[in-house]
């Protein structure tokens, strides 16, 4: 599983409330979450997520278990999320909705060229390659299927 895109850099401890606020959770319309992603952090950010790779700081996705956070990013067209460490529920949710998550200690400048290859286990920022922490076999299989729902269907 590979991806490329310009970097959008975020800080440490980005919580799921800031990814999608509690006031937008009560709907099944996924486009609402994409539209309002990061609204309280930077109202212009949602419009720039399409085709980008988020490069976050430590403890990415901490807080609430709300799956709307990872769905918002996927629906907005985020190619993948790179961070030196993730909150575990966010990480598992991302895999379950087919959003690539890459655990690697990279530093970032906005717009840097980011490429990753999860099978080979690396991420590159402006050509500088860093090893990514490998996923478990089960997580790789789920991600490769496009998420837990398609994985489930393929196993039945």
């Amino acid at each position, binding site marked *: 599983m590979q991806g490329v895109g310009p970097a959008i850099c975020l800080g440490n*401890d980005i*919580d799921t*409330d*800031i990814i999608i*606020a*509690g*006031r937008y*959770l*009560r*709907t*099944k319309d996924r486009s609402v979450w994409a539209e309002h992603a990061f609204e*309280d952090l930077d109202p212009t950010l949602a419009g720039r997520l399409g085709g980008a790779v988020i490069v976050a700081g*430590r*403890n990415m996705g*901490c*807080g*609430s*278990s*709300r*799956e*709307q956070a*990872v769905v918002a990013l996927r629906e907005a067209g985020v190619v993948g999320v790179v961070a030196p*460490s*993730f*909150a*575990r*529920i966010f990480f*598992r*949710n991302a895999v*379950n*909705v087919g959003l690539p998550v890459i655990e690697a200690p990279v530093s970032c400048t906005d717009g840097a060229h980011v490429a990753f290859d999860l099978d080979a286990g690396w991420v590159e920022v402006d050509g500088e390659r860093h090893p990514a922490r490998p996923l*478990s076999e*089960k997580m790789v299989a789920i991600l490769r299927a496009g*998420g*837990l*729902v398609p994985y*489930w*269907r393929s196993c*039945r």
Partner: protein
Amino acid sequence: MSTLSERILGAPAGAYVDREVDIAFAHDGTGVLAREALREMGVERLPHPERLRLIFDHIVPANTGTTATLQAELRGYARSSGIALSDAGGGICHQVMSEGVVRPGMVVVGADSHTCTLGAFGAFATGMGATDTAAVWASGATWFRVPETIAVNLSGRLSCAAEPKDVALAYVAKLGMEGATYRALEFAGDGAAGLSMDGRLTLSNMAVETGAKAGIFYADAATVRYLAEYGLAASPQMPEDCRYERTVEIDLSDIVPLVAVPHRVDTVREAEEVAGTHLDQVFVGTCTNGRYEDLARFARIVRGRKVAVRTLVVPASRTVLTRAIATGVLADIVDAGCMVAPPGCGPCLGAHAGVLGEGEVCLSTANRNFRNRMGVGGEIYLSSVATAAVSALAGVIAVPEGV
């Protein structure tokens, strides 16, 4: 020789296991997404509906037509699938699960990050997302990576001004917001044995604020006694010599009233340092501090006096509310000028019933003070119930003394 997580999950730290789940629940928010995932998975019959629960707590009663319609659909699904429903007014999922459902040694998953609360019973309890929960509902099992464990060794006894919430803030401050990511916390030591079940639930509840997967107490005589009141038989769990990744020491007798200041739960000050901070609202409740002991402590402080700032009290469950009515605790709270809202999460996640306006400041007994969580531009301080009570009376942050 195993940690409690290793013992319950049946494998050493670091191993991946597929494990049958004893209880899997979701609430009105995450339940909607779990239902959608089941639909997309093409799952029609659930193999073990008796192990599942739907608990309406996040926005109860519904605040908008959209919310009401989503809840009505989920209510219908509970009926048709055989999942037991705790409808609006029953209480917060973790509290409802703590009232005679979860027992020592169980594997419990919930579609809510604070599912770690239930580790207070010596169960392995952890939060997950809605799609993961749907897969558990469809199959009865899920995968886990068995966590390494950090011991939180509690010694000594709390002074009368401090309470379990202050201990929770103390360990969160010590570990930091990602100090225990992927790990389990095990609360042990003589100090743990001296805590009530309500107090243990408060400590376990905040484990996820350090990134932990679980926050576990060994079941002991107090656990067995508590569960017996609900007609459940349980046995104590004996700790074994085992390998902890590290041990954090907390002497309960050193704990003073603490406050987490905006906008990080691990930025903790002595209440004394922030005394006098202006408040627009005090909020007492949530899965951290909405239990009977909490309401009783609050009532003891405000009884016969009047709060000086708008104060909202939300019992964690109908059982808590009923008991508070029977003992006069609720009347004391209402007479002191507080508002009482139906059992549930209240304004904790900023979706309804007590959200903050721009620039408003709230002292809350909840577990999260992320920027904008309770309303855009609002500031959240987190404290114990006693600190919230004396602050409600003062209209500014105040320090409880010997209450």
